[in-house]
Each structure stands twice: as C-alpha cells, then as structure tokens.
C-alpha cells in the first residue's frame, strides 16, 4: 500500500481509541470505549486496560463496602462466579473445599497484600501475631519457602535479561519509547513534549479566545508549528542546541518527515501503527480533539486541521526528546536498538532501575537505589550487583510475607481453624494459593460487577413481578403527558401520577420523533435537535407573528445592544489597552454588587436579572414556520423549510403508534421536553436532553403539538385509522431539570374550551415538580434534611442559579435500567429516578417493527449515557475529566486542569460522584421470540446486546414471567420472590434517606 494511503488507514483507525468528544458546547453522551464495541464487554475492558492502564472496574474496596452494607449478597457473588465462565469451579481443592468457595473467599479477603515491612509493623502493633491461624500460616509459608517457586527468583542474573527483553518488546505494542525510558530513568519526556506542544496546539485549534493567531496557521499545523519553532529560543534554553538546525532542514512535506522520523525512532515498520496509537493515547485529549476537527472540517473556523500534521510533530518531538534522554542516560547518543543492547549488557543496573520503578521497596533500599541512579555514570558494576542482590533478597522475603497474609485471609473467610490447617500438605497448600490467585484484577472486577448488577436486577425483577397483578388501565384519563424517556423524568412522572391519579403518562426519546434543525427567534444559526446519529433534512424556524412585527424590531435592537455591551465588557477589559481600564473601572462597582447579590440570594438574583432582561428586550408573540407547501430536494446543508402535510402526518402517526397512544385520547395531551439551566458551568450541555444532541427538547415538543393540532393532519390521520377526537388538544412545554420549573409554549393559542382543564393540569404539574424537587434534595448534601416541597423547590431554584455550585443537578448520575413497555408495567413502583421509561404497546405490534425502531433509537442513546457514566466513574482520572474546581476553559472547545495539562474529556467527578457504575439493564415488555428476531435482523443491536454492553430481559406482555437474555446460553427464565415493601406515597419511602433506595410499591398511586 502506498505510504499516504496506509497512513490514512491508520488515522481512520485512531478514531476507535481516541476520545470522540466534540467541542464542549456540544457535549453528547457516548460510550467512552466506543472503539472497542466490537469486542465482548469484559474483553474490551481488558484491552482498554492494557492499552492505557486505566482501571475499568470500580476498585474492589468499593465493592466490598457494598458487600458489607448488603448491596451485594453472598448469593450474588456465587452466582457471579458461576456466570463468569470459569472452568473447574466444582473441583475440590482439599478436603471438601471447592474452587468456587476458595474464589469467593479470595474475593472477600481482598487483594490488598501488605509487604514485609508493613506486616512486621502490623505484628508489632496489633495482636496479629497471637492469632493462631496466622501463626500457622506463617509457619506453613516459611517452611516451604524453598519449595515454592518464587516469581522474581533469588537470582536476578537470570530474570533481569528476560524481563528487559519483555519490556523492550512492549515498545510499539502498548508502550512508546518514552514509557520505556520513563520506566528506566523516572524522567518523563512527555512533560517536556506537552509543554512544547500544548500552547501551539491550543492556538491552532482555538475557536475564539485568542485575538492573535499564528500568522502561518493557514498552511496547516505542521507549517505553523515549524514557523514558530524555527524562531523559538526555547531549544537553546532547554539545552537542546542542535534542534533548531534540524527543524530548519526538515522536508516540507509532513509525510516525508513522519516517515523519516519513524524510521529513526523504530526501524521495524510493522510496529508503526501500534506506535502511533500509543503515542496518540499519551495526550489522549489533545489527540482526540485534533482528530475530531480533522474529521469534522466544517465545524472549525476555517483553519486547516490535519491529523497527519499533528502526528508528525508529535513523532518528531518524541524522537528528539527521547534521543536526548538516551544520550544523557547512557552517556552517548544511541538509538532504540543500541539501548536494548546497552541494558542487556548491564543486567544489574537494569534490575535496580526496574525494581525502583515497580515500587514497594523498603525505604533504605529505595534511597540507595536513588542515589546510585543519580550518579549512574560513576557507579561500577559491582555496586549495582550488590544492590541488586539486596533487592532480590528483599523481594523474596516480601513474597513469603504476602503468602502468609493471603493464606491467613483466606482461612479466616473460609472459617478454617488452626487444626484444619495443620493437616494441610505442602502440595495442597500450593494448590490452595494458586486457586485463590488464579484470577487477575480484571477478572476479579468483572465478578464483582456481575454480582453488583445481579443484586439490583433481582430487586427490579421482583418489583416488576410484584406490580404485575396491580396493572390496570386508567378509564378516560383527564390528561395525557408525554415525557422524555430520561431517568430523571421517572421521578416527575411518579409524583404527577400520585397527585393526579386520573392523568396517564408516556415516555419517549425526547425529540418526539421530530428530527429537525431548529432556529429560534434569537438564534444566529440552526441547531440539530435529534439524536447525534441522525442527519436532519428539515428546518423549523420561529418567527414573530404579524401582530408582533414591531415588537420584534424593538426586541432585536435591544437584545443586540445588550449583547454588544456584554461582549464589550468581557472582551475589552482583557484585550483593549485604553477601553479595558475604563470599562473595568466602570464595571467594578456593579460587579461587586452583583457578586454580593448572587452570593446572598442566588435564586432571587437569577430570577430578577432574567426578569430585567425580559423587560428590557421586550416579549414577542411568535409562531412556527412549520408547513412546507411542497416537498423539496433537501440536504443536511440546505434543509427544507418546514414539513409538508404528508411528512407531518407520517411523524405524528409514527410517534403516537410508537408510544401506544392510539385511542382513549384525553382532552389535553401535553408533550414535555426538557433541558437544564445552570450557571458558571462549562459542562452545561451534558445535563441537557441526550436525544436532542445535548440541547433543550422544548422546541421539538412545540413542533409536535403544533403539527398534531392542525386540521389537515388530523383528517389524514383519521384516514389512516388513527382518529384523534376534536375534543383533544395538544400542548407543549419544557421541563427545566435544574430548577424544576416549567416553561409553557403557545398558551395564548389554546381555545377557551380547554382552559379549565389546562388550569388543573398546570396546578398538578407544578405540585408534581415541587414533590420531585423534594425527592432530588435528599441526594444533595447541602440541602437540609426533610425539606417540604415548597422549600425544596426554593432550594433547587437557588442551586440552579448559584454561580458557586458545581453540582447544579446530578444529571443521569442515578441511571441503571430501562423499561420499554406500557406504563402499567411500572406505574405504582418507586424506582428512585434510576430507570429510563419508554412507552411501547406490545399488543399492537405483533411484527415487532415498532419495537425494532424504538430499540434502534433508544438503545444506543441509553447505552451511551450509561456507559459514559460507567467509565467516568470507574476511572475518573483517565476516562473522566477530574474535578471541576481547577478546570480552565481552553479555546472554547474544552477544559484543561490549570494552564498546562492534557485536554480533559469525559464527565467531571462532580457529575459521577454518586453514580453506581453498572451496565444498563433493558427490560422489554415483549416475547423473547420477537426480540430474538429483532436482534438477528439488526447488527447494531447485536453488537450492543451480544457483546453484553447492555443486558436485555423480556417481560411477557400478559403474564408476570421474566426471561433474561444471555449471549452464550440464550433466554433464561427468571424465578424469584415477588414481595416488596409497601408504602403510601413516594415521600414516605424517601424522606430522611440520603443513599440510593430499593424499589417499593406505592399504594397511594391508585388509578
């Protein structure tokens, strides 16, 4: 393959492993490990762990806490061990101990093994030494030290060369030369590389912070970087004097440079792809953003962004800095192969360096090793050898200590007494320990996760079974409310149903089947309001009504003036030499007053400024440009303005049939989109509607309601067998999940006939929001316990408007499962805002076509949310973006920590702090046969379900039977009890509780 093509192929492959996060304004949840989705879940996690060293499961200590608090039971663990697909579980180890028992004990005993020094300390400070079991364990392991194969071996002369060879092998697979050198020397050239690169990268990608850009940027990143680097004095200051010459004499084509540099770095061409992957992953945030801009050229500001440029500079710096370090390390310039030979000839030095970097050395040895390393050139081979022997002896002792500790821990868990242990032979003990250590960290994590998921799954299945007999249809409902499927809306729905038993609720992906571009009255540009995978072909604009034309003029003039001044205030005070000081002195007093008000009464201040803004801008009555006369050839770039009648009918019909609302229409049908409002929050859009690409879903609701109210649409619907009676009116609103407020649309257009019903619904919904606010407040540590609904609502208003609040709301932090089926299945259950609820009527979908569409739309959205939360929770440093408090907005496309760090992607720690990481459990109210047929038809679902990225279960539409899908063994019927705690209302169950709650039956939510 030609070089250029081959490289293009490699770059395309990088998209699988780098973070795919778009610029932060468009934060959309997605599976962090999307590139590994073709692998089964456990294997994908193990692969990711190998590649970047990230933890892919919760730490075992957290799981053990759950075990201690009853969130994982012994049965769960045993079932998980059985489920993990291990062999020989029922083989005896000795006496009547089975392997499964030993594994269980090893999971419970933990993997925190103290070294020799700590063990000595424990024996001195606690009564460990007096414990008979421990004493005999020490005897057993001490006596057998010689017969046991020690992993490091007493003779480092044999192990060190092999270990060195294995480390060298890793370069190009999961290591770069930098990693190898860091392991040897403790010096990380990545720090230097990042310092050199980071400012240039940010300057090249910048979307609007810097006033002054690199003059050479239009020629691409490589040329721009080079133009600066040739003039940079940094090289001389950093003792890299020849580098400037090298840069000046580089070829102009980055591809040539890349090829040359890779050759000098790593002669073996077959390793280049792997090497580039590892190298990109070292600054994953920056690499990912560069790649994203490379792949989405229209989303930038016109500056050419090519991944090739980035990789070239990155490889060039790697080569320059690594060669510099190697020559300092070994005293002479050399390449990677010579380095291999150098340390192969110095096994003692390598052994000491290796042991130091693997940590766990006692302090005295560590000090000796460090001082030898500092004076490495002056150290002769004997000194190294002497220290190496001392370290090897220490490692052997450590191993013996670890064995005795492990053995004692296992014996305690298994209830073995000193007498039992006394009868154990050497071979049996070796087999015993081998069995206990046969699982690696990933496998242990997997078993814990399976047990953890199983515990919650049992609770949910029990709840569904218990609720089955209580199902009933609401006869002529007073109103029907369609919510987003969002887990947060589960709470709102439940409270609404408790308050108004005559109201029925539905759930659907929050774009309500209307995939469109939207341009609101004040919007500069169109935004796509639909799932990220959909490319809309239509655009709906909001326009002033005829009567509102003059008001609109006034509004635009005032609004533009206001925004211009704001822009001037924030930008000039940092950019202008004359205007800056003037403006900032003028603004000083008001700013202090605003800060005082925002601190003392954030809610009041937020609402007041909003009111002032509205009064100043003036309100404009608006309407939607909804209907297109005739279909036009539309593309994503030039979408068709509005929908034709037929298109409207299609969308309304498909949506209503999908949620199963085809008859028994109530007088009012409310479509309730959602979005989130918060202050001072760069991750704002991560709290918004995931089905609307991280935007507010209100406009979609408004468009849908307007369509469904149109006479031609209704007539056409009736012809298709879906008759909406004239007594039914569709209305739309948007729920702010931050302050639990509701913004209503087009209320003035509602005919008088429905006014009374509307007033009732308004009141009921407000009350539901207040109840929901109280339920949310129980998870906020700063909210006083046991707030009344009114107080709770005031608290969330204050919180959403508080500039000092990094947790305006908790987002999807509680998500864990999804139900696809009729609301009757779950109505009357307390689900703790943990379940995505998607309405679907199995009785009118014998072919499964509707379900297929729902699964295709909701499956990836739900899995994306759940998995992004999962990975950001289990390793917030690598998969998430750390704590918000040191975040610094960079180039308007991302955040860094401080002023010099990798670009941080994923979710901040404040969003996932209370999250319980588990895979999404999807329960579908449909028969296994239909579901199997759908999975067979749909490759995207096969990937998600057969690779166990989500867990699928089927609840029979007519009976209480539940079957769980196992990718290996097919459908497995579930059996369990159906007894659940019963309470009057939600508040009775959650009041006073701060932690996650198990499901309960609500008696008050009668229908």
């Amino acid at each position, binding site marked *: 393959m030609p070089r250029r093509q081959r490289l293009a192929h490699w770059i395309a492959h990088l998209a699988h492993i780098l973070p795919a996060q778009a610029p932060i*304004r468009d934060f959309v949840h997605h599976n962090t490990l999307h590139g590994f989705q073709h692998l089964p879940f456990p294997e994908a996690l193990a692969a990711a762990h190998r590649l970047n060293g990230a933890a892919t499961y919760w730490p075992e200590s957290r799981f053990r806490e759950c075990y201690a608090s009853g969130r994982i039971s012994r049965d769960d663990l045993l079932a998980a061990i059985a489920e993990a697909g291990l062999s020989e579980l029922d083989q005896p180890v000795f006496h009547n101990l089975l392997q499964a028992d030993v594994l269980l004990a090893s999971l419970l005993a933990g993997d925190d093994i103290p070294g020799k020094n700590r063990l000595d300390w424990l024996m001195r400070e606690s009564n460990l030494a007096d414990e008979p079991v421990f004493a005999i364990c020490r005897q057993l392991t001490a006596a057998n030290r010689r017969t046991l194969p020690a992993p490091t071996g007493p003779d480092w002369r044999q192990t060190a060369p092999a270990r060195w060879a294995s480390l060298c092998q890793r370069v190009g697979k999961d290591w770069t030369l930098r990693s190898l050198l860091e392991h040897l020397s403790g010096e990380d050239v990545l720090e230097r590389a990042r310092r050199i690169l980071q*400012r240039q990268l*940010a*300057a090249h990608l*910048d979307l609007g*912070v*810097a*006033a*002054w850009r690199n*003059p050479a940027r239009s020629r691409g990143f490589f040329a721009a970087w080079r*133009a*600066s680097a040739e*003039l*940079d*004095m*940094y090289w001389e*200051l*950093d003792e890299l004097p020849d580098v400037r010459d090298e840069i000046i004499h580089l070829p102009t084509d980055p591809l040539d440079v890349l090829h040359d540099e890779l050759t000098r770095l790593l002669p073996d061409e077959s390793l280049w792809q792997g090497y580039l992957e590892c190298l990109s992953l070292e600054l994953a945030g920056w690499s990912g953003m560069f790649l994203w801009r490379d792949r989405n050229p229209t989303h930038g500001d016109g500056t050419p962004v090519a991944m090739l440029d980035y990789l070239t500079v990155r490889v060039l710096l790697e080569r320059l800095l690594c060669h510099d370090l190697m020559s300092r390390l070994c005293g002479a310039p050399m390449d990677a192969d010579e380095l291999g030979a150098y340390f192969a000839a110095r096994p003692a030095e390598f052994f000491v360096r290796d042991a130091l970097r693997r940590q766990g050395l006692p302090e005295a040895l560590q000090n000796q090793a460090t*001082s030898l390393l500092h004076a490495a050139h002056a150290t002769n081979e004997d000194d190294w050898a002497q220290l190496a022997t001392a370290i090897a002896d220490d490692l052997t002792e450590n191993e013996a200590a670890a064995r005795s500790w492990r053995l004692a821990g296992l014996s305690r868990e298994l209830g073995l007494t000193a007498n039992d242990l006394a009868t154990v032979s050497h071979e049996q003990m070796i087999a015993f320990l081998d069995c206990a250590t046969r699982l690696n960290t990933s496998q242990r994590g997997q078993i814990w996760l399976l047990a953890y998921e199983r515990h919650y799954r049992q609770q949910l299945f029990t709840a569904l079974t218990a609720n089955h007999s209580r199902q009933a249809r609401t006869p002529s409902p007073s109103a029907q409310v369609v919510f987003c499927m969002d887990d947060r809306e589960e709470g709102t729905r439940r409270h609404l149903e408790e308050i108004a038993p005559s109201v029925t609720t539905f759930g659907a992906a929050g774009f309500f089947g209307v995939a469109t571009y939207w341009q609101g009255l004040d919007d500069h540009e169109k935004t796509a309001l639909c799932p990220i995978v959909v490319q809309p072909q239509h655009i709906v604009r909001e326009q002033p009504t005829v009567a509102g034309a003059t008001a609109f003029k006034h509004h635009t003039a005032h609004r533009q003036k206001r925004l211009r001044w704001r*822009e001037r205030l*924030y930008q*000039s*005070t*940092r*950019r202008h*030499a004359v205007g*800056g*000081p003037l403006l*900032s*002195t003028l*603004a*000083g*007093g008001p*700013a*202090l007053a*605003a800060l*005082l008000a925002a*601190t003392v009464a954030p809610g009041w201040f937020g609402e007041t400024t909003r009111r002032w803004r509205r009064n100043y801008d003036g309100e404009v009555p608006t309407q939607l440009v909804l209907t297109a006369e005739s279909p036009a050839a539309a593309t994503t770039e030039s979408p068709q303005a509005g929908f034709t009648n037929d298109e409207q009918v299609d969308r309304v019909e498909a949506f209503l049939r999908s949620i199963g609302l085809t008859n028994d229409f109530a007088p009012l049908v409310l479509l309730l989109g959602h979005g989130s409002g918060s*202050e*001072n929050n*760069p991750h*704002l859009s991560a709290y918004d509607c995931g089905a609307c690409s991280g935007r507010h879903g209100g406009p979609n609701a408004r468009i849908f309601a307007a369509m469904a109210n149109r006479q031609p649409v209704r007539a056409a619907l009736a012809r298709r067998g879906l008759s909406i009676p004239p007594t039914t009116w569709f209305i739309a609103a948007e729920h702010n999940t931050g302050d639990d407020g509701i913004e209503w649309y087009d209320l003035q257009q509602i005919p008088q006939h429905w006014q009374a019903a509307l007033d009732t619904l308004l009141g009921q919904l407000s009350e539901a929001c207040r109840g929901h606010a109280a339920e949310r407040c129980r998870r906020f*540590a700063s909210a006083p316990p046991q707030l009344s609904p009114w107080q709770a609502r005031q608290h969330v208003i204050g919180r959403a408007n508080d*500039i*000092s609040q*990094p947790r305006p709301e908790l987002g999807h932090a509680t998500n864990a499962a999804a139900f696809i089926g009729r609301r009757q299945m779950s109505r009357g259950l307390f689900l703790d805002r943990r379940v995505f609820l998607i309405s679907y009527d199995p009785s009118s979908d014998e072919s499964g076509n509707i379900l297929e569409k729902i699964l295709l739309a909701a499956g990836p959205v739900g899995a994306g949310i759940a998995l992004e939360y999962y990975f950001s929770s289990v390793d917030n440093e690598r998969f998430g973006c750390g*704590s*918000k*408090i*040191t975040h*610094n*907005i*960079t*180039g*308007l496309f991302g955040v860094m*920590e*401080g*002023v*010099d*760090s990798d670009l941080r992607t994923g979710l901040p720690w404040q969003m996932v702090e209370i999250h319980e990481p588990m895979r999404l459990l999807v329960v579908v109210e449909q028969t296994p046969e239909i579901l199997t047929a759908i999975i067979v038809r749909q490759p995207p679902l096969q990937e998600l379900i057969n690779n166990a990225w989500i867990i699928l279960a089927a609840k029979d539409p007519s009976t209480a039977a539940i079957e769980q899908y196992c990718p290996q063994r097919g459908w497995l019927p579930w059996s369990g009890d159906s007894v659940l705690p019963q309470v009057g209302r939600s508040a009775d169950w959650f009041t006073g509780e701060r932690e996650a709650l198990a499901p309960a039956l609500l008696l008050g939510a009668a229908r």
Partner: protein
Amino acid sequence: MTAVITALLPLLTQLADWVWLVPALPLLVAFIIGSRILLGHAGGDAAEPLTANLAALASLAGLLLLLAIDGTALWRGMPGHRQLGVWFASGNWQATVSVQLDGLALSVATLTALIGWLVVRFSTNYLHREAGFHRFIMLLCLFLAGIQLVLLAGNSLLAFVGWEMCGIASFLLIGYAWQRPIATGNALFAFVTNRGGDAGFLLALGFVAAWLGSFEWPALAAANPLSVADARLIALAFVLAALAKSAQLPFTPWITRALEGPTPSSAIFYGAVMVHAGAYLLLRLEPLLLQAPDVMLALVAMGSLTALYAWLCGLVQTDVKSALIFATIFQVALIFVEIGLGWTTLATAHLCLHAAWRTWQFLLAPSWLVVTRQRPAPPPAWLARNQLIYTAAQQHFWLDKLGQTLLVEPTEAFARDLRNLEEKFIDPAIGEPGHGQPIDVERPLILVDGLPGRLLAAAASVLQLLEDRLLLRSRGSAPERLLRRLGRYLQTLEYLLEQPRYLMMAVMATFVVIL
C-alpha cells in the same frame, strides 16, 4: 435616643482599637481548622459546615468591624496611626503592634474584607467534598489574615509578617493539587521567584532600622533626617518587593504559572487582591517615593514595559485563565505607572475598582462559553503578520524558562549539594543508629559509627582503664578512701537538695544562668 447615642459614643471611638481583630479572627480560625485537620476531626460531609461557618463568620465579622470603623471615620475623622502595644523593644528602638487607619488603608481593607467574605462563601459550595476542602479554607483564612495585616499595619515590620503569610498561603494553594507534578513544580517556581521580592523587603527593613530606628510608617513619611541617597535606597528595596508581589517585570512569569489552584483561589490571589499588594505598598510609601523622583521614573518605566509585555502576551492566550491573568497584569502595570506619575488618588481608585471587577470575572471564568459570542478583534495587521513577535509572545518572551534556569534550578542544585554534603560528610561524621562497626576486635559487642560515637567509645575505654586501675586493682588503697569520703559528701549534698528550699534555690539558679 440621644441617650443611647451618647452611651455608644465612647464605644464607637474606641472601635478603632479593636481593629486588630480583623486579621486576628481569620488567623484564629485558620489555627482551629488546622488543629481539626491534625486531630482527624476533618473528614466527611458532617465536618464541612463547621469549617465553612467559622471561616465565613470570621471574615464577615472583620467586614462588619471595618464598616463600623469606616462609619465613625466618616463621621468623626480618620483614626490615623495608633499604637496598640509593644511587640519587643531593645535600646532606643522598638517593634510595635500598631495600625494605620487612614483613607487608603480603610478603603482597601474594607473592599478586601468584602471580597474575602464573598470568596469564602463561594468556595464553601465550590469545593464541597473535595479532599482538600479544609486545607483550602484554612489557607484562605491564613491569606485573609495576612493581607489584612499588610493593609492595616502601622509599621513595615508587621506588614512584612502579613506579606510572608500571603506568600506562604499562595505557595500552598498553587500546590493545592499536590498529586500533579506540574502543580507542585509551579508552586516551587512561584515560591523561589517571590523570595527575590522578600529580599528587597528585608533589605528595606534593615535600612529603615539602621537609619531611622523605627519601623512606623509615619516615621518613614516624615523622614527628614534621611539623605536623598538613603531615601532612594530604601525606596528601591521596597519597589523590588512590590514588583515581585504584583508580578511586574522581571517577576511576571510566576503569576502565569500560578493558576493551578481552584478557581476561587485564582480569583482572590491573582485576579483581585494579592496581585495588588505591591501597588498598595507603594501607595503607602508615597511620601518616601516623593523624595526619590528617579525611583518614580523607574516605576513608570517598569510599569510601561510590563504593560506592553502583558498586552502582547495577552493577545495570544488561548485559555481563559491565562488571558485574564495577563489582562490583570496589564492593568496592575498601569497602576504602577499612575503611582510613578504621582497620581496616587487615581491609582487607589483604579486599584479598588479593578480588584472588584476581576473578582467577578475570575469567578465567572467557567462561564466564558456563555458570556462571549465572537473572537476579539485581531491586532493591527503589521503586528499580526510578525512571526517572531508572535512566537515570543506565545512563549512569554522566554522569561518563564529563564526564571527556571536562573533561579529555580540553581536553588534546586544547591539543595541537592546540601543533601549530598549531609549524606557524604555530616551523617558519617555524626553517625547513624544501626550502622555501627566494631572498633576493637577483642570487644565485638561495642559497635561505633560517627565522630561522637568514637569519642564516646574512647571515653568509655579511658574510664574503663580508670576503673581497672582504681577499683579493681587497688582495693583499700588511698585513692579508694578518698573516693569513699567524696561519696559521703555527695550523699549529704543530695539529701540537702531534696529539701524543698534547696530545690527551689537550685531551680532559680538554673534560671539565672539561662537568663
């Protein structure tokens, strides 16, 4: 009504004497929080409110007290310079605890107290459940105490104490995320470069002590006996301190690397309050500066140069906090120019208003995506095309790297050398436990390491020799009788000493010797 006022009147006039509470309360709170951390009482959600409330209360109390003093000052005139006590004295000069309550001090101190209180409130929410929550609030209190000491102090010695407290708090907060090597490296950088300014301050203190015999600000202001040369030297030394604290050239790099801490600390330290401390010091020294016009000229030059530097660097910044910090330095540089031109009232007003605006802007730095819509206007085309100046601005004119090479690395090398000295020479000389070697093959039980060990071993040998000679070999001889008599005397002495009166005398004698 009038009765109440007349009753309160003496109280109000005495209010100024209580101003020491303004720095003392946050300091006390810092100590309380510190001891809670040490005693292990600072963990979990439940421990947060007490820490937060104490800090908020202390800063609010300071604010209210200052407001009350402001009120009386407006009504009955400035309290002026007040001596609250004597710290220590020697001969004809003394270090006092005094405060200077004039318009400058009261206005800036009140503003600082207000910003301090708001930032404490902000941080309480912002840092909720952070591992360093208590540490952060403690350091914030320490800083508030320090900065109020600088602002209110009536003499330069007390101001220096506050100056150092601010420096320490700043150093520790840059290293707030101590797990990140970049953060600790930058903290070290800021610490080392700031010592340059401290050297200036100490030098000034030395000059003042030598030539004036008093650290009080008024004495410095009315320094008639001073020659122009002396005044110039003192002013220059203070200016050096001010340049470092306010991050003017050539000290600017430390502040650009100081933005590693949480957002509220960036706001109060580098955006709003501490960065102005240098300018405040110069305002305080205005009478002295007037005696040295050439120093004022130097101030104008330094300020202009810094302004140009900060403006150029600010243009190329791509992250919000860096962009804001260069904007801040730019305006602080202008304040220096204003002071150099003698426009002190303008400078004071500029300082206060600028601090207020930057607090707001820094605290709202995470909102940048929302508050701005478009890229700021580019610089003039002739500048925009210049690749060399662009590169220089992007690299902060390499001052950063120079500072590292000239200041930090030599310091680190010196520390390494000291460590080597200790390991190679001092430790072996003193000896370490567990490293002993037998010195005498006949007595393998005696293990010795280091000089004192060898001395002790030698002394032991001599004594053993003595014992051999005196006691074992010559039983009943003259030396033995002598020793017995000595023993009896000593027994008597011991008996006497056990009597309380003699014990007391012995204790007192010890004291006399010590004193």
